[in-house]
């Protein structure tokens, strides 16, 4: 027996529904399809927290009482008041995405057996844009098991603009809900998931063809990072590449320089660059490894910011970097850590620092490196992964010899023990990059610097041609 006059349903009808209508504006098409079914599995694309509010907006009071949404507990438990509010209003079937457990599936099955209906987001998480991500197979499994229950695909358009991922202030923009006719599926779980994915993708394409479009922003610069331990000659190589590469290039190292087919271009002084250089000098004159850490991390973040600034204001075709803030951070983390990271953990750390994964999903790494939590909470985990990585592999002994022959101040980590550890860490970084879109090449840095530069230019030109051919 469904209680229609509960406070929860009254809240939905008298408060949430009018507020959503006034603030967001709901334009629903095909809602009458829902009146034809008593029980359903509703699937929808997921781009925003508003999605659930909109889907409940189109349900009748009887259906509100009988419908539960599958929601990510790991996200909501971080805000206890929100968790309690959502639990009260939507009575979700909580799913913890960090743990693989059958209890959620059992709960869903029990609810469906009880004549209840379910709202699911088969993408698993909110997408970053209006693109639909690949569906999880769980939806296929549930529909396969309960093929008698009709599936109602719903396409939501607008929430990704009203309240997209990583934004906290909602904008009052109109949202469109397209409810498709109820459907029944047969076939295996993968087929069902694929069918639903292509169905919603078709709806998305149909909708997008009417949308106003902006001119393409153009290509983002090709970012090449030369990495290696101190004294490996990475800075010299990166600068040589910027000078000798026959294109519009930028070099980001100790200095910031622009070259157009070998001719140096005049650039504006950047405050970020000046600040970075000053902090970099502080790091270099540090006496102990512990006092080196903070200025170095700051310098790396400023260097990444500079990369964006250069991309924004100068748009060179290629950016050559002396090191990569993202990869340097991960390699240095291994140097500071008592227990070393393995390849998988490094891949996870790279994804975390890029902002592709949330810290809650990688709790085991965040616990070991509390700095990571600070970085994520300050929203600094937006570091850029280079498109191409050149690793200059040089034995630490050679590097120490080169460093001492410079006659400059020797930094606390510039000794054979630490450089050997760092070299190992960079090798691990290169291995962990195999599962990313970034391409890694190892060069022997023990050669003459001009010869290495020539080899690298030849290699990069062939890579560039291949990339253009693929595009």
């Amino acid at each position, binding site marked *: 027996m469904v209680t229609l006059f509960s406070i929860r349903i009254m809240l939905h009808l008298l408060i949430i529904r009018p507020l959503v209508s006034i603030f967001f504006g709901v*334009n629903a098409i095909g809602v009458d399809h829902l009146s034809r079914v008593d029980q359903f599995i509703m699937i929808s694309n997921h781009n925003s927290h508003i999605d659930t509010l909109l889907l409940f907006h189109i349900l009748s009071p009887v259906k509100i009482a009988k419908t539960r949404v599958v929601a990510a507990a790991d996200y909501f438990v971080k805000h206890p008041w929100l968790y309690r509010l959502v639990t009260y209003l939507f009575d979700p079937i909580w799913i913890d995405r960090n743990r693989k457990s059958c209890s959620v599936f059992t709960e869903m099955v029990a609810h469906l057996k009880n004549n209840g209906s379910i709202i699911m987001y088969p993408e698993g998480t909110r997408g970053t844009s209006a693109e639909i991500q690949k569906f999880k197979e769980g939806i296929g499994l549930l529909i396969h098991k309960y093929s008698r229950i009709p599936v109602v695909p719903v396409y939501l358009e607008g929430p990704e603009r009203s309240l997209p991922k990583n934004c906290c*202030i909602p*904008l*009052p923009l*109109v949202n469109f809900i397209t409810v498709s006719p109820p459907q029944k599926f047969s076939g295996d779980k993968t087929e069902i998931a694929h069918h639903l994915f292509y169905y919603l993708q078709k709806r998305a394409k149909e909708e997008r063809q*009417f949308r106003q479009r*902006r001119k393409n*922003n153009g290509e983002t610069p090709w970012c090449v990072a030369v990495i290696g331990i101190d004294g490996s000659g990475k800075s010299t190589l990166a600068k040589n590449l910027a000078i000798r590469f026959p294109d519009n290039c930028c070099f980001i190292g100790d200095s910031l320089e622009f070259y157009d087919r070998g001719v140096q271009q005049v650039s504006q002084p950047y405050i970020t660059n000046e600040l970075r250089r000053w902090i970099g000098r502080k790091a270099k004159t540090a006496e102990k490894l512990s006092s080196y850490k903070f200025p170095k991390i700051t310098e790396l973040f400023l260097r990444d910011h500079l990369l964006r600034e250069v991309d924004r204001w100068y748009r060179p075709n290629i950016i050559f970097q002396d090191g990569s803030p993202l990869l340097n951070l991960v390699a240095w983390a291994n140097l500071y850590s008592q227990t070393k990271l393995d390849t998988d953990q490094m891949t996870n750390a790279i994804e975390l620092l890029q902002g592709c994964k949330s810290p809650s999903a990688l709790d085991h790494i965040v616990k070991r490196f509390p700095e990571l939590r600070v970085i994520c909470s300050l929203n600094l985990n937006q570091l850029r992964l280079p498109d191409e990585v050149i690793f200059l592999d040089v034995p630490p002994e050679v590097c120490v010899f080169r460093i001492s022959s410079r006659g400059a101040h020797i930094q606390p980590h510039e000794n054979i023990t630490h450089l050997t550890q760092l070299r190992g860490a960079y090798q691990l970084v290169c291995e962990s990059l195999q599962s990313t879109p970034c391409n890694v090449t190892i060069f022997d840095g023990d050669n003459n610097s001009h010869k290495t530069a020539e080899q690298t230019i030849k290699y990069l030109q062939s890579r560039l041609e291949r990339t253009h051919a693929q595009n």
Partner: protein
Amino acid sequence: MDWQLNTVSIYLLFLAQTLFAVSTLIVEYPARVKAYSKHLWLYLLFFTIGELFSFRWASVVLSLICFIALREYFSLIAIRTGDRLAILGGFLSIPLMMATLLMHNHHIFIAAIPLYVFFFIPFLVAIGGDESVGTVFSIGVIGVGIFLFVFGNGLLGFLTLCTPWLGIIVVINVSLSDAIAFCLYSTRKPLFQGNLLQYLAAIPVTVASSILVSEWTFLALHVSIIIGTIIPLLVAASRLIMFHIESDLGIAQNYNSLRRGRLINSSSSLVLVTPIVFFALNYLT
């Protein structure tokens, strides 16, 4: 309650429009007629509330109309993530409009909105995101929205402040021009050749209506005739402007299928005509 003829006429107009709007729910009318009747009902509600209660409450209705129109407009344009702050700023121009209306100071309003679009919106676009590409487009597109729906509606509010019938006659004449053009619409003729005649056909009707209510608008006979003549011509030009804007926003292509952009389509003539009429009246009276 005031029972003078001019006030009762407003109530009757509102009542008639309410009945027509209700009838559109029962009888099958073309989608454009339904949407237009809703939009007209909202404007007549604004005048009726002003007469029944006070201009303060009427300005709330006008602000609501601006909000709904802006919400619809911003939903259709291509925005970048970095423009979100500027769009929020766009919505904040509505309280600014309301404040100047309540201060009865159209001088501030006329200066404030262009300055808002000229400086404040570009500033919000600049600090909102870290991408420069598309900045001019964003500033332009948000500015157009504010000018259309806040500036246009705000000046209608100021016309109403002078005398309610001044605002009403603009709304009625624009609606009459649109209605006559809709009735004479022919798909065979291109927009600005054959269709201009449809709007010219509305001139005798709009001139007659302007003269008919001149006692309540306090306009001289020659001014009433000028206003009655220029409104259909301005509506024709507005429709041409909006035809291009709507094509770009994707309203024209799927007006019937996806039900988007209907308020923009209905109110476009009014919001484009009102500023011209406001300045014409300022000059002529």
